[in-house]
């Protein structure tokens, strides 16, 4: 059965992802049923919340091992991206270890002496790495996407695109079938729609 599964867990904004898919004519199923997630054509792992609490919840539901073992295209969003990294400074949390990246808290002061406001909130540019990623097809070289977060993923071999906010960080990560974005494509206007369409086409 061809199905887009959105993983249901104790996180906000899941409904806005479902609405964004609806606007693209896709009806997704929101589920925490391991079998249904494993059998889905594609899986979206959204999230807004605190890392350690959320990891605890995923473990309790057995969803941590389900997500790590998926072989179909998986798209993590925001906290989803952070939980797919190795470790998060938020609550000193061991995460899923899918991406070669760590999650750190933004420094409060930028080198320019001007105060860096945290959370990093608003529209920022996402610059693709030379390696072309199918998730970023049909987008400008540095499109704007909408961000809201206080922790960021470091850059490394899995970094597909970088954003600068005091420090350069991974705004898109990609490793085999696993992809993740730090921004909210569901709230990022036309650029967000292009990215979601790219994912749905994989």
């Amino acid at each position: 059965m061809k199905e887009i599964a959105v993983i249901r867990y104790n996180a906000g904004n899941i409904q806005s992802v479902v609405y964004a898919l609806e606007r693209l004519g896709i009806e997704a199923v929101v589920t925490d049923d391991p079998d249904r997630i494993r059998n889905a054509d594609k899986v979206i792992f959204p999230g807004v919340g605190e890392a350690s609490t959320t990891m605890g919840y995923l473990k309790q539901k057995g969803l941590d091992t389900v997500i790590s073992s998926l072989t179909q295209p998986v798209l993590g969003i925001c906290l989803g991206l952070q939980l797919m990294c190795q470790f998060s400074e938020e609550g000193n949390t061991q995460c899923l270890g899918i991406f070669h990246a760590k999650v750190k808290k933004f420094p409060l002061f930028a080198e320019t002496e001007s105060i860096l406001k945290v959370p990093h909130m608003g529209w920022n540019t996402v610059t693709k790495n030379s390696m072309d990623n199918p998730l970023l097809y049909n987008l400008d070289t540095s499109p704007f996407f909408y961000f809201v977060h206080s922790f960021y993923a470091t850059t490394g071999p899995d970094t597909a695109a970088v954003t600068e906010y005091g420090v350069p960080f991974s705004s898109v990560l990609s490793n085999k079938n696993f992809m993740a974005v730090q921004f909210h494509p569901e709230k990022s206007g036309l650029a967000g729609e292009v990215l979601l369409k790219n994912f749905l086409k994989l």
Partner: protein
Amino acid sequence: MLAKRIIPCLDVKDGKTVKGVKFVNIQDAGDPVELGRRYSEEGADELVYLDITASHEGRKLFHDLVRRIARHLNIPFTVGGGISELADAEALLMAGADKISINTSAVQNPGLITSLARNFGTQFVVVAIDARMENNQWIVYTHGGRNRTQKELFAWAREAQERGAGEILFTSMNHDGTKNGYAIDALAILSNQLSIPVIASGGAGRMEHFLEVFTVGKADAALAASVFHYGEIPLPDLKKYLADRNIPVRL
């Protein structure tokens, strides 16, 4: 680079926008969803919907509206008006609002900021502050500017931040409606004192005012209503004007 945000604000009563709007090709100019989509297409970075309904029936219509906005809008939106307890905010979150803004209820019960931030995250909580300059002091007002409080703007904004506000939306009552520009001096102080983003509100009349509020006023975002609703400043023109003057904006 993080862009400065331009935020049109729509007042809603009984599920309809109340101020007249000059847009061509809109069937129903009063439909907040249709208007929001138009603003989004023209380059608005976020939207604020304020429910100015007093009745229970109107409030119910507003909740239905929030659900429709969430379904149809592809940019973030904040809703405010009549949120006095956790349950009100939760209902709006469930309806699909990205953020809520609280004003009077935060002053009356500052603990509300704390519990909202704990339950739904700081990014969800915008604390709106209306203040008036009186004898060299910015005095905080509540109830839509009708009730004077003992609070002072900067101290209250810092307290709101410490309690978990994710953003401060400051409206200068001295500047609101004048179209003579934002309260840039107060905004600069506010922005320097806070580690969370500041949204400027009140006084926008010309494009220069937006330039000034981002440079001198150090605001992270600028909110306006009538200049957008009456078509006095078209959003694409404003964005281009700011970009030409090296203000980082999303084009």
